[in-house]
């Protein structure tokens, strides 16, 4: 099967039931997509398929046939997507592990909704756990990214 990852054509011949996350991490070395729970409960593995955020740990390879996958490594060429910039300006991360998933999820939210309300931001980010507890800064960063955009 064929797919695109970060705008590059890929060919995949392995187990069609393998979650996309392991393909990205183990085969392509795109380790910005993090393994957190394996069950779609924490959001650390969030990537975009055709711009919409999905949990790559519960999205199997056969379902991404001919799809366009974007990972954190492909979100922007220089790391200066407005959400990434907002994250740095707000000093969001502590350990940093969940942040790629958070950023991917927030970027997808803002691409679909240019001016989300507070409740819409919280609802959209519910699936992304941060055990360090950076939530108030995550919320602040998204709000400032909305303003900047």
């Amino acid at each position, binding site marked *: 099967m064929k797919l695109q990852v970060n705008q590059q054509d890929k060919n995949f011949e392995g187990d069609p039931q393998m979650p996309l996350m392991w393909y990205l991490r183990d085969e392509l070395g795109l380790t910005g997509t*993090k393994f957190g729970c394996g069950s779609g409960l924490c959001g650390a593995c969030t990537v975009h398929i055709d711009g919409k955020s999905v949990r790559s740990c519960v999205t199997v390879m056969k379902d991404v046939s001919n799809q366009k996958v974007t990972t954190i490594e492909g979100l922007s060429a220089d790391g200066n997507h407005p959400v990434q910039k907002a994250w740095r300006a707000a000093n969001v991360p502590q350990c940093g592990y969940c942040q790629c998933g958070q950023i991917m999820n927030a970027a997808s939210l803002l691409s679909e909704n240019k001016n989300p309300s507070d409740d819409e931001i919280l609802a959209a980010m519910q699936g992304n756990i941060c*055990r360090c507890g950076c939530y108030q800064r995550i919320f602040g960063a998204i709000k400032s990214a909305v303003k900047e955009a």
Partner: protein
Amino acid sequence: MKTHNSQALIKNVSRRNMLKGMVGTGGLVLAAQFVPSSLMAAEYKTGAGGMPGGVVWDPHVFVSIGSDGIVTIVTHRSEMGTGSRTSLPMVVADEMEADWSKVKIIQAEGNEQKYGNQDTDGSRSIRHFTQPMRACGAAARHMLEQAAAVTWGVSSTECRAENHQVIHTPTGKKLGYGELAAVAAKLKTPNIRDVELKDPADFRYIGKGEVQITDLRDITMGKATYGQDIRIPGMKYAVVARPPVVLGTVKTYDEAAAMKVPGVVKVVKIKSTPMPAKFAPLGGVAVIADSTWAALKGREALKVTWTDGPNASYDSEAYKAKMQAVARKPGKVERNEGDVDKALAGAAKVVEREYYIPHGAHSPMEPPAATVQIKGGKAEVWACVQSPGGTRGDVANTLGLKEDDVTVHVTLLGGGFGRKSKCDFALEAAILSKEMGGAPVKVVWTREDDIHHSFYHSVSYQHVTAGLDKDGKVVAWRHRSVSPSLMSNFMPDPKRESALELGLGLIDTPFNVPNLRLETGEAVAHTRIGWFRSVNNIPHAFAMQSMVAELAAELGKDPKDFLLEMIGPPRIVDPRKTVTSELWNYGDPWDTYPVDTARTRRVVELAAKEAGWGRELPKGHGLGIAVQRSFLSYVATVVEVAVDDEGNVTVPRVDTAIDCGFVVNPERVHSQIEGAAVMGLSLAKMSQITFKNGRVQQSNFHDYPVLRIGQGAMDVRTHIVPATVDNPSSGVGEPGVPPFAPAFINAVFAATGKRIRNLPLGDQLKKA
């Protein structure tokens, strides 16, 4: 100092004589203590010299300068989110007058002889290494000045380092650090007594909070590398089926079925270790494969059956009843002042309360992972470990190698919270690499593995009895703590809290009560108990601070005023003569870090003031307050809750005051306190690990919930008590957690009149 042993906390505790030394003298002989001449008066002693590896401050170890002027600073503590990886090099850079934009940070491998203690635990990085890293940077500055003096043929007194260059003050000529690097590198490190530290007024970075964490950009771009992310050419992937009951053993498994899974290359049985097992793997059956996915499929195919062993009947409900019964009977006296029995017998009123705090799992967002490769009798480890020095020793022991033949590369840690102090996952990788003839093997833990096989935060039952006289004054305080001990990993189960665990916020009870007795009751460990961010401070603070609020309610007094009344006047509380065995003061000297109720009071008053204590609140809202001294810092928290008609609780605002002595990076203190509120709310409101038939009943974030965004603690305000550099720095990573749960529960009481004594809150407020 160096033996094949690992965890420094434990090492210090197991050295009983060291502890004893601490009680009597209040200070140890600190081999590597710093007394830079300029700060003789201000310098203070810490326990750093008594830790494995002690302290190293030599700039030849930590600092190198390229001819391009890039200053490379080694950071030797593990980074799990506190920011120490950045903050300690920042201290060096400031003292050496380096321009932060020209500083590169590299992570030390595990080598405590070379770098000093690396056990990133116990909220010690800033506390123990601010002074040595200042000395390191200042010595480097002297050497650069001397290098310029040699180059120019002038006296070094005429040379002054400033912002990445040295200036010849009489002439104004300048040489950049890059131009001086080669000469400076050949100079001897000055004597510590000749090292002159900067005037704090000249700090560029220390105390400012403007330096961002060094990995910030990489983190936002997916380039930061954690233990789970390691990739080595030729690497195999392994997962392990571990016994669901601690001390269980493998009965049967289907190796052939696992080997049939495409990509599986080997199935290896790992033996269990009897307790005390320290950090030895739990045992089980490993599946090694060409990919994580194949290893996971192979593990499913194993269909392992188990012999459960002696812990098969561990049941949280039954154990709770057992602990309650123990807590209702006299225990072993740990600290005794006055005559509690007599005072209780003569009291006008006796108030008796019980509190229960369940097991917890750290569940860092990155589940444990480690990679090991063995080549030519030498092992290399890549792992997210909090204690790379200890890991090095344990891997060497496991493989029968000398420590010198083991290199531990420390990745970033995707959270730690104490879980990654225990290197069982790295030892699994070592065993499996050996089985594969030394090929690199990465052991991946899944979330289920993490929750099923943690070193759990100890379950605890707390029984507090207070006697009031006819004027409503508390004349007797008896606190019994019953909790299985983490020492059961390291010695035959002591069946009660050790000196270390009592030191975690019970033995230093600050209350101004004439008759006071602290006791422990017997509790046998039936699982692996481990330290979890702030450890026994959680149950101890929960009981003490809930009880104070309960007494305030009994007496019809304001909880904040009554808390201050219980703390009493500003004074040093000195339990050294009233403890029955040992007083553990977080491994640090008493004289530097006594129990100072002026500081306890100050944070209570500050938090209350900033929170607007007593302000008018909307319907359904309530304020609660609690304070705890932990990790030698003083933290008070005021939590505001909002409870709706259905009993749903949110936390609209939190105000936390922290006195942690001198602050190196206030911005990271804020982030730690914000995070502590989130973790505190998780454990107070929703998270618990329970056992049935010896097995953990939870498995992932659906049944072990942790706080999600918007569920509270979104407005955490941190108020730092200002302190100059001569005020000993104390812990930050952990101390934010302990006061949160009691402040939250006290707020729930204020809002609803309902007193919660069993954590987590769960649905206890829900209307039926």
